């Protein structure tokens, strides 16, 4: 592998990793607040793909992007209200099962509404423009993805660490009842978590599908699982962990494909998960798991 191809693959891997990171944040934030693995998150990401297909056909793409983000937020919050909120005081396993059900529901809904045939994902000409840096050449989206990811993560971290709403999120993630005693409305904080997670999944979906050109009802399943693995690798609950995990998996996957092991690349992701769980169950950045009462 020459240096140029090596760098070219790095670039592709980092870009894929950026999209993964944005999705992984949704898993890690919801887990941080509700101790719930939101299995429907990958399918919310898939639905965002369809939203884009339809939005672009009837409006200019900059407006379509906004519509897609808003639509995805509404979908994410609606799922929380319908499938998770009524189970708030049930055993955690019930909510988990509800999440799995919601995931299949979204896949089937998409199949019913849009058929299982792949739909062409709209091309945003600007994002597809080819750029050349030295010997490296890639479309703009490849350069934009990691930069945008890092920017969004910085914004998100400063919201969480330096605003009143962020402080409330950190408090709720540790202790529901005491947060309530402070006058915090738990449900609003939980909704806010789903708003952020869904918005990032929408951005991630635009960046991811622009490179892949088509969307099916099952497009969210595997990326969703991989991003969940990314969140676990980084230490579920930790946002920087999810980002590092996302980049790690994106880069590994790209190199395995480049080296000709494309059939093995998905299995590798899960192998990584197993090894990590055996060696360091709390992930790279995870704190000690304390069970919530």
């Amino acid at each position, binding site marked *: 592998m020459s240096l140029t191809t090596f760098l070219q693959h790095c670039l592709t891997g980092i870009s894929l990793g950026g999209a993964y990171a944005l999705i992984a944040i949704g898993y890690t934030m919801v887990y941080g607040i509700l101790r719930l693995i939101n299995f429907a998150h990958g399918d919310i990401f898939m639905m965002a793909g369809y939203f884009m297909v339809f939005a672009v056909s009837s409006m200019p793409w900059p407006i379509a992007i906004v519509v897609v983000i808003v639509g995805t937020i509404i979908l994410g919050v609606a799922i929380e209200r319908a499938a998770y909120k009524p189970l708030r005081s049930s055993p955690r396993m019930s909510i988990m099962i509800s999440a799995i059900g919601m995931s299949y529901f979204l896949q089937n809904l998409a199949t019913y509404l849009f058929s299982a045939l792949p739909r062409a994902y709209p091309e945003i000409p600007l994002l597809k423009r080819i750029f050349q840096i030295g010997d490296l050449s890639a479309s703009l989206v490849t350069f934009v993805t990691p930069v945008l990811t890092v920017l969004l993560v910085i914004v998100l971290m400063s919201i969480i660490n330096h605003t*009143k709403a962020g*402080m*409330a999120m*950190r*408090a709720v*993630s*540790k*202790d529901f*009842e*005491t947060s*309530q*005693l*402070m*006058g*915090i*409305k738990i449900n609003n904080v939980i909704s806010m978590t789903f708003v952020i997670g869904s918005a990032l999944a929408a951005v991630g979906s635009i960046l991811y599908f622009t490179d892949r050109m088509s969307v099916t009802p099952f497009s969210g399943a595997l990326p969703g699982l991989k991003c969940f693995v990314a969140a676990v690798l980084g230490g579920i609950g930790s946002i920087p962990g999810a980002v590092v995990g996302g980049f790690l998996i994106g880069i590994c996957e790209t190199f395995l494909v480049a080296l000709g092991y494309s059939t093995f690349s998905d299995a590798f992701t899960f192998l990584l998960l197993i090894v990590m769980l055996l060696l360091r169950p709390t992930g790279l950045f995870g704190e000690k798991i304390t069970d919530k009462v």
Partner: protein
Amino acid sequence: MSMLEIKDLKVNYGGIEALKGISFRVEEGEIVTLIGANGAGKSTTLRAIMRVVTSGGGSIFFEGEEITSMDTQKIVNKGIVLVPEGRRVFPNLTVLENLKIGAYLRADQAGIDKDIEHVYSLFPRLKERHWQMAGTLSGGEQQMLAVGRALMAKPRLIMMDEPSLGLAPLVVKDIFSIIRRIHDEGVTVLLIEQNANAALKIANRGYVMETGRVTLTGTGEELLNDQSVREAYLGKSK
């Protein structure tokens, strides 16, 4: 009109009756204490007042207004605050953030800053450690923080659930002198204590609870001299 009035309050936890209909009142400017054995339902009473558990009957009035089924947020806004059992500071927030979150519903930044200074003057230790994660404070410091955090809401009625639990005798003395001081500043106090002796000494009035019922009431002094209270809660024989 009493500041707080509880009428026939009942609470069930999945079929188990923790409160079987209790009634009591707190007048403005008083220190009132609830004493009783473990499991009598003292904490449940305070949690039901804050509506972090739902009551299964009865009513709660604050300054004449019924608050039985108001959300917790509104109740805090009315001026009631609870220092929960076991301190429950937010371990992943700094000391200063814990104080700020106590003022979560307030918007008067100048007033909040002033009250932070006031809490620091009550508990100078908290000022020294304002940057520290609350989870790394000692038990006594956490209790001070829990009280300080409650004061940040500018309460009219502060309810404290066993503030001296697990603290060294010297720190317990500090906590009681702080309770007095808070009371002197015009805040009404409803106090739950295992340390019945100390609680009855500073209280105007007290109620004795047994398995979900109020069984005895009187002034602090009357209860201190009551034979059954002396035997059951003060560990003194005839």
